[in-house]
């Protein structure tokens, strides 16, 4: 359903537009540099700047180094708590994953739209992006699991003490819940980000249309909607952090399954 002219279309913000190279093709696939790719590049650059600025290794850390060390310490503690000693070697991956998602979520909330012609784009609100991240996590689980335990990895699907007659049913259920993991992981992040942004755009259309219609609707509709928008924006910052944390947390739990089975 297309939006009427002059109305705010809440889905417009998710549109992927090629910026350069509309006709770059590899084997029939277009590889144009899109706004999605641009925001990924911005995320990586900012993340790199943030990390390099905080890796001076001073004995007495400054504020910046303290900020970076808080994040690394946070992920380190999480892996230590969930996986144990074996978790240390996954710190680089889970840390990159967490920071990339966190920065992406927060950058998508930046009000850069006040500059004409510039649109913030949250690439974590696309299933393709979160799907690739989830498949990355899932393949690490599979590779580590089969590498460490070989064929015994399948005992993951049969918890200890399962009665023998129940084994086929439990095996199927556990297998299904295992195979659904990358989907639930990707879906959670993508829908949480998309829902928040759609909500903000719907509220913004209340503000714009209400303020344009008359003084009465400005007072009754537009101003309360604007207040709600401010509150929802604060909630979205919280959600951005929580979703990045949940993605990293679930990844570490799944890796724990691969490391230690049940």
């Amino acid at each position, binding site marked *: 359903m297309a939006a009427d002219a002059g109305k705010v279309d809440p889905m417009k913000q998710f549109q992927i537009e090629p910026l350069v190279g509309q006709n770059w093709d590899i084997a029939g696939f277009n590889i144009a540099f899109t706004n999605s790719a641009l925001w990924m590049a911005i995320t990586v650059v900012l993340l790199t700047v943030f990390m390099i600025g905080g890796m001076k290794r001073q004995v007495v850390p400054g504020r910046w180094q303290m900020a970076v060390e808080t994040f690394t310490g946070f992920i380190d503690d999480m892996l230590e708590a969930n996986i144990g000693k074996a978790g240390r070697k996954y710190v680089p991956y889970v840390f990159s994953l967490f920071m990339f998602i966190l920065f992406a979520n927060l950058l998508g909330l930046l009000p850069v739209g006040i500059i004409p012609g510039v649109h913030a784009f949250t690439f974590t609100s696309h299933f393709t992006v979160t799907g690739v991240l989830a498949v990355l996590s899932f393949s690490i689980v599979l590779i580590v699991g089969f590498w460490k335990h070989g064929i015994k990895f399948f005992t993951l699907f049969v918890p200890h003490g399962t009665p023998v007659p129940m084994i086929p049913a439990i095996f199927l259920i556990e297998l299904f819940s295992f195979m659904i993991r990358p989907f*639930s992981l990707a879906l*959670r992040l993508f829908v949480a980000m998309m829902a928040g942004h759609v909500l903000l755009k719907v509220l913004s259309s209340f503000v714009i249309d209400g303020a344009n219609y008359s003084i009465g609707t400005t007072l009754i509709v537009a101003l309360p909607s604007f207040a709600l928008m401010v509150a929802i924006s604060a909630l979205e910052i919280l959600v951005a952090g929580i979703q990045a*944390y*949940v993605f990293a*947390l679930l990844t570490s739990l799944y890796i724990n399954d691969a490391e230690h089975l049940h």
Partner: protein
Amino acid sequence: MDAQAAALIGAGLAAIGAGMAAIGVGNVFGSFLESALRNPGAADGQQGRLFIGFAAAELLGLLAFVVAMILIFVV
């Protein structure tokens, strides 16, 4: 009833799922807070489990949202 109208009603019904997930998420955090106040010393160690429960409850609400979005924009 024409198909478009039915799809929109279905999308509205899917919002019930989002409300149910809100109950679930509230339940997770409420129970956590209740027990955290009884034994504050053990609360910090359970934060991981708190967020696992939150993620599981929230996922189902998000699925309801996906159903609504599919009904509005795809069907």
